[in-house]
């Protein structure tokens, strides 16, 4: 039997402008308990502003947000929200073992500190001043702080940035475990691996608009472009591969299917050397997606 899950977050037609710039433009979304939603986008796409609107930190120019039926800035909603801001700065003079109970004391049903310690790998950090922690350690404490109130929904803005892969994987496990306890998690990230590992659903935004909404696999296929680069002489004065441009003495092209592109290059008979195939940056992939969607729009219109 499929258990129906409650809607925890509902946003309708959200818009936020800063001067003439639309940071968030007509965004609607809803999430269910236990769901992990990833918001992806290049820098300046509007991810942080959207998170601020959803958590009640900012008021929208237009549209509404409801957290389990309440406005996000209400006390009832704030009792149910956990947040890890993008820039983590903890009170420097508090020890971690003081900070977590302090945060916990704000909530009706706080998470026991010992559990937070084991879930977020805080062994050895509890007696240290927050100001003496490294960036990665601080992020782990901030992540623990977001879950101290046993929230119904948690907003994690780039939660594992700056962590080594081992710590990342351990924290991904903790985030997944929270989702299994029915916490709805909204992640904003640049990290496609993180999305692949955690998210049930992905929203890609650019210039404040939702560009794409799909499962992580499909988004990865659409955005997981590869960057092919090699050295070669031009062929009859033209690029030796369709779409390739010269960057620092190399021919560079972003392709959707890297294996196929290499096969095509070999088949073309071009004398190349020092070939590299690497993941394209997310920004490039999104810009490519944006261009494609704009062209598709124009095609539809014309």
């Amino acid at each position, binding site marked *: 039997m499929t258990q129906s899950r409650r809607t925890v977050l509902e946003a309708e037609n959200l818009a936020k402008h800063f001067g003439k710039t639309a940071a968030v433009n007509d965004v609607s979304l809803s999430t269910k308990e236990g769901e992990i939603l990833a918001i992806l986008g290049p820098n300046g796409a509007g991810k942080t502003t959207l998170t601020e609107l959803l958590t009640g*930190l900012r008021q929208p120019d237009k549209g509404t947000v409801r957290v389990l039926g309440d406005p996000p800035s209400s006390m009832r909603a*704030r009792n149910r929200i956990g*947040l890890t801001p993008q820039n983590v*700065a903890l009170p420097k003079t508090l020890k971690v073992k003081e900070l977590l109970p302090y945060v916990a004391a*704000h909530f009706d049903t706080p998470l026991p500190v010992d559990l937070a310690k084991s879930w977020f790998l805080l062994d050895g950090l509890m007696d240290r001043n927050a100001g003496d922690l490294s960036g990665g350690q601080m992020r782990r404490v901030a992540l623990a702080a977001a879950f101290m109130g046993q929230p119904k929904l948690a907003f994690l803005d780039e939660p594992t940035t700056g962590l080594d892969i081992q710590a990342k994987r351990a924290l991904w496990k903790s985030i997944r475990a929270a989702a299994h306890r029915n916490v709805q998690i909204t992640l904003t990230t640049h990290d496609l691996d993180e999305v692949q590992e955690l998210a049930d659903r992905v929203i890609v935004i650019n210039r404040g608009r939702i560009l794409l909404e799909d499962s992580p696999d499909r988004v990865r296929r659409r955005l997981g472009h590869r960057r092919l680069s090699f050295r070669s002489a031009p062929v009859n004065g033209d690029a030796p591969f369709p779409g390739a441009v010269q960057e620092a003495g190399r021919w560079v092209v972003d392709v959707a299917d890297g294996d196929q592109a290499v096969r095509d290059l070999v088949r073309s008979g071009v004398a190349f050397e020092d070939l590299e195939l690497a993941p394209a940056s997310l920004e490039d992939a999104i810009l490519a997606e944006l261009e494609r969607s704009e062209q598709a729009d124009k095609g539809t219109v014309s």
Partner: protein
Amino acid sequence: MILLHFRFILLQLFRIPAFLVPTVLFPTMLYLFFGGPNGGDLIDAQFPLGSFCVFAVMGVAFYQFGVGIADDRGSPWESFMRVLPVTLFQRFTARIMAAGVIAGLAILCLGIAGWSYGVTFSFGTWFGVGLALLAGTIPFCLFGVALGYLAPQKAAVPIANLIYLPLSFLGSVWSHPDSLPEGVAAFSPYLPSRMFAELVWAAIDGRFNLPQLGWLALYAVAAFGLCVWAYRRHESRAYT
């Protein structure tokens, strides 16, 4: 919730010697160098002690509210705090209570320093001085809050010093009004710091200085207006 925040504000302040030492001990140090030795007989010597109490309380108002709020505003931790289920009123009340403790400590140090010069107040005088300090500090706390919402984080300390120290000198808080330069003496009585000092001097004299209290109330109204404007300006820039 208020007590929780009160406890944690104090815990943090007591671990920052760079805040605590100047705020609590600086007025006592100045009193030991300049106030105590120039006091004269016991009755005359009570007035500098009262003046330096004014200086201490003004310092707490400017640093605890001005610098403290500017610091909080500039920190990303503030975003986290604003999502916690705690109201601005609760946090602000806790801040006022913490300021009261710091001011109390500063006055205790001054009392001990005065005692070392043989300058003491009766219990009744301390009570009157305490009330005068409490009433007189309100406009300065409000100016402090306005400063906290207007000044950038890194500029808050120098700006607080630029206001607080000249205001103390010009208001005759460090010296007898007769020793002020002629030009300064002309406008000194109109400054809030001078009015605050006169309120405390009257309390030492066993009097209640209603006109000065009235003027300070007007300053408080002006400071409150500035405060509301600064707060709204900050909120609209940072959070709307």
